[in-house]
């Protein structure tokens, strides 16, 4: 091959490649602008930047709006880039606080990194609890009762038809059709999947042999991205079965889950109740409250399929920022803040005991 022909191949090849790549490039600019030009009213002023959990997005928007209304000199930016990204940004000093759908992972060095960033033990408190509902699309069936084993078998593909005797046995009155069950899962890693698989692995451990994970562990069934994708898949797919944030249920049919001897429908109160009977993880710094929700609780009215999301902050900040962080986070875990989130995002308010502990830790934030 002479040099001309090489050039004839290579140059257009590179040109085509470059063009192809530039066409396929997908920009993901979601940098929030920090605009701190507003002034007047309120005793506080300044800009606060947070990032993390997208589950908290609606709640953070409500908190931010409330707080900025009361303190017009304050600007708070919350960037819902995802829990992993939020923790990474917090640990590298990029944001003032982070929201995360799972507690900092000690074995991955996240606690150490957070402590290093803060120069002292970082504060981690639950701020957002959201019940997860099991929803389905079966024509003519509005509600179902399921025990954990049956639900796990349906999601694992071990029960394949809606008129399976096992489902019928728990729902004698329901007109269940001869329709295939189409389980739907999140195709993006998510805190919802993590909490739901955690529930299945504990409440139905004989059937669900996979550990809790942010990625759906089974390589079958329908995958949908985001809560909106899940809702869409269940709305359109006959026989579909899915797990979604309870606030997004809308008109979908919801299953009640067997807790103890009763069937409990998802509710904010039920999730709060489950949290209040759960124990904090041991072996963590005193400023770190990570809750292991008791998935096998039998407490009356508790609904153990819930997602707990956390706030991560430092115990000290320089200058005026300390007061700003303290005031904002105090508002978030306050009764009014929790109520505001419940209205805006359908979340469950923190149980009293956790709320007090969280408020106390946040109250300890000081100027360095």
């Amino acid at each position, binding site marked *: 091959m002479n040099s001309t*022909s090489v050039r*004839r*191949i*290579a140059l*257009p*090849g*590179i040109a*085509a*490649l*470059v*063009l*192809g*790549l530039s*066409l*396929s*490039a*997908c920009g*993901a600019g979601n940098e929030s602008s920090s605009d701190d030009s507003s002034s007047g009213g309120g005793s506080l002023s300044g800009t606060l930047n947070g990032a993390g959990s*997208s589950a908290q997005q609606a709640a953070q928007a409500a908190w931010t709006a409330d707080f900025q209304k009361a303190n017009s000199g304050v600007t708070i930016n919350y960037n819902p*880039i*995802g*829990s*992993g*990204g939020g*923790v*990474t940004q917090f640990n590298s000093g990029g944001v003032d606080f982070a929201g995360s759908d799972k507690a900092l992972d000690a074995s*991955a060095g996240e606690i150490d990194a957070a402590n290093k960033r803060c120069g002292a033990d970082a504060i981690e408190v639950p701020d957002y609890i959201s019940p997860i509902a099991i929803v389905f699309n079966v024509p003519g069936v509005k509600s179902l009762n399921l025990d954990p084993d049956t639900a796990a078998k349906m999601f694992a593909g071990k029960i394949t038809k809606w008129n399976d005797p096992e489902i019928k046995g728990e729902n004698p009155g329901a007109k269940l059709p001869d329709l*295939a069950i*189409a389980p739907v899962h999140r*195709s*993006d*890693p*998510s805190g919802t999947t993590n909490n739901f698989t955690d529930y299945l692995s504990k409440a139905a451990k004989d059937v669900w042999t996979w550990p809790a*994970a*942010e*990625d759906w*562990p089974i*390589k*079958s*069934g*329908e*995958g*949908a*991205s985001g809560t909106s*994708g899940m809702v*869409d*898949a269940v709305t*359109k*797919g*006959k*026989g*579909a079965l899915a797990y979604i944030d309870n606030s997004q249920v809308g008109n979908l049919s919801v299953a009640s889950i067997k807790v103890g001897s009763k069937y409990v429908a998802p509710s904010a109160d039920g999730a709060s109740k489950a949290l209040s009977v759960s124990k904090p993880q041991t072996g963590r710094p005193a400023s770190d409250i990570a809750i292991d929700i008791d998935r096998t609780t039998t407490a009356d009215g508790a609904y153990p399929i819930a997602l707990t999301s956390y706030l991560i902050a430092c115990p000290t900040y320089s200058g005026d920022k300390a007061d700003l962080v303290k005031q904002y986070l105090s508002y978030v875990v306050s009764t009014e803040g929790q109520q505001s989130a419940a209205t805006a995002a359908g979340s469950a308010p923190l149980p009293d005991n956790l709320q007090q502990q969280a408020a106390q830790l946040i109250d300890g934030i000081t100027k360095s």
Partner: protein
Amino acid sequence: MTDIPLEVRSPKRRLGDLTFGATARGAGLLILLALAGVAVFLTLKGLPALGAKSADLDAHANFAAYVWPLVYGTLISAALALLVATPLAIGVALVVSHYAPRRMATALGYLIDLLAAVPSVVYGLWGIGFLSPKLVPIYEWLADHVGWIPLFKGPASTTGRTILTASIVLAIMILPIVTAISREVFLQTPRLQQEAALALGATRWETIRLAVFPYARSGIVSAVMLGLGRAMGETMAVAMVLSASGIVSVNLISSTNPSTIAANIALKFPESSGLSVNALILSGLVLFVITFVVNFAARAIVSRREVSR
């Protein structure tokens, strides 16, 4: 510009000449630099993923096992998209260049170009909201009647969000670019050769086959390669439409589908941290290499054919 005296050829290069030459060369170098920069970034950030454990690799034993289903999904969806789009695009391009009356051809060409201006998220929304539900009965029919073909083995997806649907959306997305380039190439075919073919008694189709296609072949391949590049790299539309489970399967109509590299990165990146980010970046490098190899191979095939003729 018209009154430049021809005999003045000063050996001294003029300022304008120098500036233009330097700028053009700079632009060319910048492209290479950008390309090299991307490759270096992907390699440096990606290599740590080779030592990643299964916890960071979506429960796969090593990176090869992790990336293989994605490579498969990327290739199969792009190939299906090309299979649908190429004949369609060449047909449309021929209508515009040879069959339709001038005025209609202009309008049609304009409409096709408009397709290219639609953002990929909109294609995604269209795919998930309109196309997928419409395809469900077809998939069910396929599963019931030709289910013995492994490609159409049931159970059919109840939402229609299959790799076949994703490929059809991709096909529509790459249609404008393939059509536009093919059309330009067809229009470039020497008029005399076409008229000669007609004069020899060839029908219009024979003229196209004898005079237009041979002349346009390398142009068509370039067009298809550009389309392939877009199909393999397309992210948003696939991430939205496809029900991805990260498996390897030849079944085109079930709800369990292989994912593609680009869609996988888009879906997984927001919630990833540590080595799993490196794994995603390394999968990006794999896509980069595949695109390069496919383009280069296609170029080589075309030029060899032309040399041997």
